[in-house]
């Protein structure tokens, strides 16, 4: 396991090492970043009791929480619990949401990662049914089988990585976040993220190496 860990307090999720120069006021009024401004407006509407805002926030952000939780936990039932908890924390935060401090997505990635990390630490061993989190790919039965096998192998290899390497890989390589945003989510510098990703990739390659032939990657490792 990595020495340092993602801080697990919900309140810490709004701390950001790289703050922009926006005025430190609540609400959407002084937020320069258009995404943050839109987020703040949604949160204001939600706090004011707008049901459409509740639906909008759920549709936009629940998939994000669930995806990340699935990839970190590998167990859909646990991922559902974590995603639901993360969304509840977001809704509870709506009345005093500070739009200039973070995007909702960044905040949620961090809260979800913290909740998932807590879950991982609470359970003694990796679950046997880890591959349940891998959805069945779409095209052709044979290709689908190969893809499913590859996804299962990837998930198993991810599960074997240290927590922070796994989180860095999932956020940057699978969720497609920029390094700066990954750094914000993880509460570290960009260099640290680069290092975590590099080490994570090395770990994945080492874990997947023996299965290259079985996964259709051109033969067994030499």
């Amino acid at each position, binding site marked *: 396991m990595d020495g340092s860990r993602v801080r697990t307090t919900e309140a810490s999720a709004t701390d950001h090492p790289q703050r922009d120069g926006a005025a430190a006021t609540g609400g959407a009024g002084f937020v320069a970043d258009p995404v943050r401004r839109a987020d703040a407006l949604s949160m204001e509407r939600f706090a004011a009791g707008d049901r459409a805002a509740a639906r909008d926030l*759920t549709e936009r952000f629940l998939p994000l*929480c*669930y995806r990340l939780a699935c990839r970190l936990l590998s167990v859909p039932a646990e991922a559902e619990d974590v*995603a*639901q908890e993360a969304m509840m924390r977001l809704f509870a935060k709506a*009345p005093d949401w500070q739009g200039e401090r973070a995007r909702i997505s960044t905040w949620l990635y961090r809260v979800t990662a913290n909740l998932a990390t807590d879950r991982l630490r609470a359970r003694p061993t990796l679950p046997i049914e880890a591959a349940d989190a891998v*959805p069945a790919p779409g095209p052709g039965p044979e290709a689908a089988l190969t893809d499913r096998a590859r996804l299962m192998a990837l998930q198993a290899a991810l599960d074997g990585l240290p927590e922070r390497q796994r989180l860095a890989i999932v956020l940057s390589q699978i969720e497609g976040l920029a390094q700066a945003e990954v750094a914000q989510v993880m509460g570290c510098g960009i260099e640290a993220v680069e290092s975590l990703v590099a080490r994570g990739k090395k770990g994945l390659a080492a874990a997947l190496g023996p299965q290259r032939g079985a996964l259709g990657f051109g033969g067994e490792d030499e």
Partner: protein
Amino acid sequence: MSDRDKRPSGAEEELAGLFALARAAAPEPSDALAARVLAQATALQGGALQGGAAPAVRPAPAGRDRRPGRAGLGIGRWVNAGGLALAGALGFAAGFAGLLDAAPLQTALFPTSLFPASATQADEAAELNYLTEGPPGASVLLGAESDRAE
């Protein structure tokens, strides 16, 4: 650099392919989960609308603010400082008067009708006598005792 160190370029491509596959096959939350979350969200909103939670931004009170304003606070501070200065001056005067003679200050501050000078002096004399000579009549007894010892 060993062969094993060079190899990750091919492995990098394979990993990139796997990551792309994972992105394409992103797990989606079930409708039941979405419905649960939405129900909880609206319940939370309902609670907030009924006054269960604090409003987003606490509104300013509609009526007149009864707390002292800046000017009021300023005046209050001057009154406090004045009171402190007066108490200090009185204390200084009392101490200074004590060095010279306490009687003028006592008579100045308290009417003599309350503390007749003769009565207080008599009391003080009686108390001193009691301490040095014992209660009234003790001197006689002590004298008798000493006589007997002799």
